[in-house]
């Protein structure tokens, strides 16, 4: 599998296992159980060297609790601090949850392949996000909102369990103003919800504003949702080599050494997390791979 050429510039560290200190400068509560942590690298040189590509991730380290891979969810063009949207799930995120503004933690990164923005050139772009899967896609929204080259239609299809768990919903208006068509759907509607109910793949099914034959699809969410989104896209006329998905597995080293994130022929950390669909499609169908 070819590694996507999306290497970012990482904090200057002679030792790939050793973290660089960072300070939490802001915490935004997003939706229940999800918050965005804005991290500023403490070291000045590390700060000025740091760049990331949309879709890449950092390893956040809390000594004692451990490390966790979190995608960078902010604007790649901004010089920092760097946004990391985190869902409280396990031991490490639980410990992160106890931190306050001003607290410090460790950071390594960025790692992995990013979304291939170059492929969007002159094409319609559809982003399909499920739940917190919108976090790794948000840098794409920022980047394509100020895209200066030729671009077709820009569509964001967003699914969540319920209306109150639609991530970043306060920004949707901004994105619409920047030219995005934003469609949302929820699994379980509340009484005041007037929007779509059902899987996000339904939005993709019904999407008529883009020319599937020349559109690009970036998809991030639960594995089964990405699999079905790709199936729908193929049926709608997308070419398999214009679909990208972002995979998730446990990661410990982030550099292809520890073996934890292996998936078929790939290391998710090194060859992914963003994969072109046609290259990994057969493996999505194999349970327990």
């Amino acid at each position: 599998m070819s590694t996507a050429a999306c290497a970012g510039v990482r904090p200057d560290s002679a030792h790939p296992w050793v973290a660089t200190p960072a300070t939490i400068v802001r915490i935004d509560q997003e939706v229940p159980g999800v918050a965005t942590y804005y991290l500023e690298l403490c070291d000045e040189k590390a700060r000025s060297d740091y760049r990331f590509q949309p879709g890449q991730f950092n390893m956040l380290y809390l000594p004692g609790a451990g490390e966790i891979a979190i995608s960078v969810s902010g604007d790649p063009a901004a010089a920092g601090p760097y946004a990391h949207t985190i869902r409280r799930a396990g031991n490490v995120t639980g410990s992160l949850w106890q931190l306050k503004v001003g607290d410090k933690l460790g950071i390594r990164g960025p790692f992995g392949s990013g979304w291939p923005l170059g492929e969007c050139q002159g094409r319609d772009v559809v982003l399909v996000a499920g739940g917190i899967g919108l976090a790794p896609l948000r840098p794409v929204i920022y980047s394509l909102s100020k895209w200066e080259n030729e671009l077709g239609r820009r569509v964001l299809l967003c699914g969540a369990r319920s209306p109150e768990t639609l991530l970043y919903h306060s920004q949707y208006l901004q994105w619409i103003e920047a030219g995005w068509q934003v469609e949302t759907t929820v699994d379980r509607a509340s009484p005041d919800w007037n929007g779509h109910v059902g899987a996000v793949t339904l939005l993709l099914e019904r999407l008529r504003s883009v020319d599937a034959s020349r559109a690009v699809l970036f998809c991030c969410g639960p594995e089964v949702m990405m699999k079905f989104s790709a199936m729908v896209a193929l049926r709608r006329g997308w070419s398999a080599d214009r679909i990208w998905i972002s995979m998730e597995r446990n990661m410990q080293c982030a550099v292809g050494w520890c073996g934890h994130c292996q998936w078929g022929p790939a290391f998710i950390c090194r060859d992914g997390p963003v994969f072109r669909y046609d290259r990994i499609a057969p493996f999505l169908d194999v349970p327990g791979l």
Partner: protein
Amino acid sequence: MAGELADSSSRKKEALFANREEFARIVPLLRERGYAVIGPTIEQGAIVYAPIDSVEQLPIGWTDRQEAGMYRLERRADDAWFGYVVGPFSWKQYLFPPHTKMSESLLTAEGWEFRAVEDDAPMYAFLGVRACDLAALAIQDRVFMNGPYVDPVYEKRRRRALTIAVNCTQAAPTCFCASMGTGPHCRYGFDIAVTELSDGFLLEVGSERGEEIVSGLATSAATELQMAEAHQRRARAVAQITRKLDTHDIRNVLLSQLEHPRWQHVAERCLSCANCTMVCPTCFCCSVEEVADLAETRVERHRSWDSCFNWNFSYMNGGIVRQDIRARYRQWLTHKLASWIDQFGVSGCVGCGRCITWCPVGIDLTEEVAVIRGEAT
């Protein structure tokens, strides 16, 4: 040149001969130059690689009898120094150690301070590296040194290590290096290569560092007769290799058979105990754990060998990905023989046979592959 890995393939030096007494001096010679000499020696009922300070600690006059799930030491009829194949250890013990303290974190008034831990391993001289293990070293080089990131522990140890290879003059029934194209003849990646003869050793120099060591021994140019004996002995090893693994198109064959019924068949026998991955000279999976005081103000990160056979190795928030032994054995075998090629450009298997011998229930990967290929039932 120090720090350069031996590239013996580019050297065409004539072979030299050293008698046993003279070759025995290589150990003190290496020690004088600051090397910690690691060589084969008998411990715990097996031939392992451990520090030695004299050739007398080699398993002189011993051999190993191996088959699937069985290893025994036996007396030889002669006093050969290298008359056995590979044992339960591999050189990865020394380059990618089972436990490593990787970093330290200290909570100060200014917040966390992160430090790398300086590795203080000695400069190793590996005596008795077989062809399969030379290939294994080259594979781990690709994993730890030749990608975009370099593992500092591995790299430092590896660049300083001196490699004295030994050509096999016999093979075990578990050996299949010939199928993997890695042996039994040592052709690259050594500083010195040795073939044991009836009355001494034929030496080939593979690097400047090797040359410097050999120049400290009294040697003579190998005679035609000695060369012929070396050739004959190496040919004996080739002839003794009976086990085969068909590597033709193996990547596609295995990755297209992810739902083959044989995976369930092997899962019924496999203990998922991780022994195969531990004895494998190329397996590199590891886990990192936090070692801390109760207040968590001084924290160390320790890296330890781990294995894809461990039930929770694939743990993530959504649960455990490889939930049964079938999925875990499939992961190991397809990674070793197929997806390794995608990841590192070579197979992860060198045909040393350790995983066959040291499987407590004698599972043989060559047999599993043959069945998946449809060649056996």
